[in-house]
């Protein structure tokens, strides 16, 4: 399983490194969203700083959707599942590999976005430990749940509309928890943030476990 996971993650990341879609399109898209929010919400810096965490996670969420969609589009056939199934790799391994690759890309994106928020929205970073743990748990949870629904939608004609419909309500608590935890960390009131961080870890654990168990059957179905 771990060997297969490493193989798939390596392959996905290598494809991303070669195609540079992430660097050339997803990251600029995410930064653009930050700028568009600034236009929409009046660039009064006080407002932007206070809603910064929420905007940050909304942007991560939508970019995450793109990353997940892309993770299955890059599979080497019209029906992404064919190539994955034919490879003979273990379902759980494929899940961990794909989710891992998505999480790695999101982590990079979050670093860039965090810089964007600090510079553009004049947010001052506090509570580094909580911020890091929040990002870690939220990213893993997002990637894991997204990958599970990604394989359900992959290969269907309706995938581009079905994936957001399925995954956004599931990820609603992640968005809520991550934004609140970041707010608490930035406001210097960590005691309010820890329950949220715990919730994020619970979510990540549940969906990673679920993915490991369910991905094989989901991949197998013809």
């Amino acid at each position: 399983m771990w060997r297969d996971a490493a193989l798939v993650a390596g392959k996905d990341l290598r494809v991303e490194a070669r195609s540079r879609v992430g660097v050339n399109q997803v990251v600029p898209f995410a930064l653009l969203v930050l700028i568009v929010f600034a236009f929409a919400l009046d660039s009064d810096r006080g407002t932007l700083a206070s809603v910064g965490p929420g905007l940050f996670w909304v942007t991560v969420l939508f970019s995450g959707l793109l990353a997940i969609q892309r993770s299955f589009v890059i599979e080497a056939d019209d029906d992404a599942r064919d190539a994955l199934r034919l490879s003979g790799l273990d379902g759980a391994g494929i899940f961990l590999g794909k989710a891992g690759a998505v999480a790695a890309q999101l982590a990079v994106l979050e670093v860039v976005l965090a810089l964007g928020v600090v510079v553009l929205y004049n947010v001052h970073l506090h509570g580094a430990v909580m911020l890091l743990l929040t990002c870690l748990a939220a990213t893993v949870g997002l990637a894991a749940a997204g990958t599970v629904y990604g394989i359900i939608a992959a290969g269907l004609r309706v995938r581009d509309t079905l994936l957001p419909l399925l995954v956004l309500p599931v990820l609603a608590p992640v968005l809520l928890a991550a934004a609140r935890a970041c707010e608490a960390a930035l406001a210097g009131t960590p005691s309010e943030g820890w329950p949220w961080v715990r919730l994020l870890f619970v979510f990540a654990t549940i969906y990673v476990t679920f993915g490991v168990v369910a991905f094989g059957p989901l991949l197998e179905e013809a």
Partner: protein
Amino acid sequence: MAFAVRLRSAVSLLGRFPALAGVDLDVAAGEIVLVQGANGAGKTTLLRACAGLAAFTAGEAEVLGHDLRKDRKAVRRRIGLLGHATFLYDDLTVADNLQFSARAAGADPGSAADAMARLGLDGRLRDVAAGRLSAGQRRRVAVAAVVARHPDLWLLDEPHAGLDAGGRDILDHLVRDAAAAGATVLLASHELDRAAALATRTVVMAGGQVTNGLLTPPAAAKEPVHVA
């Protein structure tokens, strides 16, 4: 007799269409079987279903000793399918593609290099992204990806299509070598002369069935067809 493929009244659906409507087919280990038939007879679905890509929904289906209706995963690492799609990652180089294919099947890392050498891909093309290859070159790489897996069952769907003369000769050579080494080959082709020369036996498909697929006398073929 050891069967590489043994199908009895096997049904496989494409959506709600019965692409295979009760196939009876025996293929012994080491055979090279040519599957003939008009377009739409079910050849492609037969090969895909044997690779576990399309499900058998009724009947019996045994491939490489595994019941495909119960466990489709078990045979995957031992199968090489050359289909209409090439299953290549456009953004990866030829070498990376073959490396991934070989490692996914659990073959040793040298087999990718070996496959490249046998198909004449180890020169300039080695580090070219698959997306930049011509259609003919892609076919060659796709063949190499199958070879690199060292499959026990080769499922070749129109393998000669799109290959140049040199590539076809290499492919035939590889298939004969593999069969001599004990692998089984199931081959669908419209290049009848070439394919018939390669095959050790020919079966005919029509209407989602194989008319002369059984090796044993027809006693076994009298079983009724079970549907749904």
